[in-house]
């Protein structure tokens, strides 16, 4: 079932892709134009995706509830990190990221926090001090 659904999803994306390509026109430039190549790619992709809907191959076993929750938590941590990195500044945000990912990976909370703080500080020294990564110790939330 998963394969059929994925096939259908890829088919829709490819169809949209090939359809959109027709609007790309250039009055100047080269013989090929900007729309031919995307159409050349999109149509076989539609055909292959459709064949996966009709004749699905293979089976997929998705992770169970508990594991899925862990994955969602890890993904949330990654997105939140990207959101807050510039606000919190590198060391605080990275320490939190490392600690959360470690805990989600079954690490003991105390030690995970320790690794987060130690890891982020050493990475900050390595990248900021040695490489000159242009990021402040404290982010825009603190410095205004």
């Amino acid at each position, binding site marked *: 079932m998963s394969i059929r659904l994925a096939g259908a999803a890829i088919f829709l994306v490819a169809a949209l892709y090939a359809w959109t390509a027709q609007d790309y026109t250039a009055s100047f430039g080269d013989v090929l134009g900007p729309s031919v*190549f995307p159409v050349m790619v999109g149509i076989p*992709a539609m055909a292959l995706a459709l064949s996966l809907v009709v004749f699905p191959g293979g089976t*997929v076993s998705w992770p169970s509830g508990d594991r899925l929750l862990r994955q969602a938590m890890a993904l949330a941590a990654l997105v939140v*990190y990207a959101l807050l990195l510039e606000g919190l500044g590198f060391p605080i945000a990275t320490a939190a990221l490392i600690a959360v990912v470690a805990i989600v*990976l079954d690490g003991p909370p105390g030690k995970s926090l320790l690794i987060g703080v130690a890891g982020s500080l050493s990475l900050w020294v390595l990248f900021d001090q040695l*490489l000159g990564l242009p990021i402040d110790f404290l982010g825009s939330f603190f410095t205004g």
Partner: protein
Amino acid sequence: MEILSSLALGFSVALQPLHLALLLFGCFAGTLIGAMPGLGPVNGVAILIPLTFAFGFDATASLILLSAVYFGCMYGGRISSILLNIPGDEPAVMTTLDGYPMAQQGQAANALAISGVASFVGATVAIVGLTLFAPLLARAAIYFGPADYFALYVMAFATIGGLAGVDPRKTLLSALIGLMIATIGLDPATGIPRYTGGSFNLYDGIDPIVALVGLFAISELMFLLERAIKDRDAAIRLTTWIPEAKVILGTAWATVRGAVVGFVAGVLPGAGASLGAVMSYSIEKQVSNKNNTFGKGDPRGVAAPEAGNNSASAGALIPMLSLGVPGSGTTAVMLAMLISLNVQPGPLLFERQPDLVWGLVASLYMANVMLLILNLPLIGLFTRLMAIPTWSLMPLVVAISFIGVYSISNSTFDLYVMIAFGVLGYVLRKLDITLVPLVLGLLLGADMENNLRRALSISGGDYGVLVASWISVALYLATAAFLALSIWLGLRDRKRAPAAE
């Protein structure tokens, strides 16, 4: 003679202090990355690329570092295969079959030494092959016109999934998804923005490096979270580090056979180290399994796949350097780095930047010797480092990936792109759609379109130009034959499967 003078040039490049230091670091880090379950050559190399940019290394230095890591991984993968029964990376899967039983029988020191020596022989055979054949292939490729390159890319996409096991439709679909992603951004010929949704962030297209780190590092984290990590068997303890010379010598022929088979598998587009190991093992089993000892701790079953995967991984560099079409996932990632540094691999690379090509080749000879030393007398160090638990290592890897990607353009937009590609990579891998063709499509898409453009503007829009030269016709025929063969094999397997039940 020409080769000798080229090699002399190469060694003069490779012996520069920075290059030597990177080589040593790469060998050490690579062995460690290979030995850690969950980290393999592809994600190891992908994570390191943004860091090489941050350090401001030039193409030669970066390539030397990444190749050393790549080779180191091939050596390191066997350590956890033998001691933990968990392959350290994908190509080391075959090594578990006889390596772990040997370790259970108290032969761990022998198994590690055999596989170390086999890795050395395999890699050496392939580097000699690289020295001899890569320049020849590059010279032949000079005659390729734009239409021939277009045909070559079509062939690379069709064949990269390899022959056995995978559904060829999924492989092709993966390549097409990669090509679709590659067209995002400003069209290089006409300047029209395509598929940007009006976002200026996407005008430059998707940075392949950002996509790669997401596809490999972040999706690996998702896979790691899916498995129960806690219940992992303890590593087998070693009673002695001293191997027996007699056992090692007994595997000499298995090693040589494995090295040759692996090399052939590596040079073929898309086969790569994993297939090299599988082919070496199964051929060795057919040749030597007289008393049904394979799978129960036969030393030859350790030597053949280790020689095979090392030799295949070096062989895969040949099409990458001389044609610009990588032979495996890791070489595809290395190609991404070269393209980002404005180095276009292909036949002209050998003429324009001989110091890069031959510096790399010379470094590989030296890396191989360093790795043998690291992996025989110093093996105890790696087995101790392997005991570091996953929950403390993986978060650091994730953090380093984020810093690396952020440092490319100092924008958090790239971080979202990376996470999105991580999810995409995870879902595709769950659906059994391999990522290597996607990466190849993403990397070569722009070049493929450009070659099509060039061919058509030469012919004034006549599509007949695509099949006008015998080179392109031969490439299309080879592609068709390959696809027919893989579909036939797939149908045969499907017929066989119900019969076996």
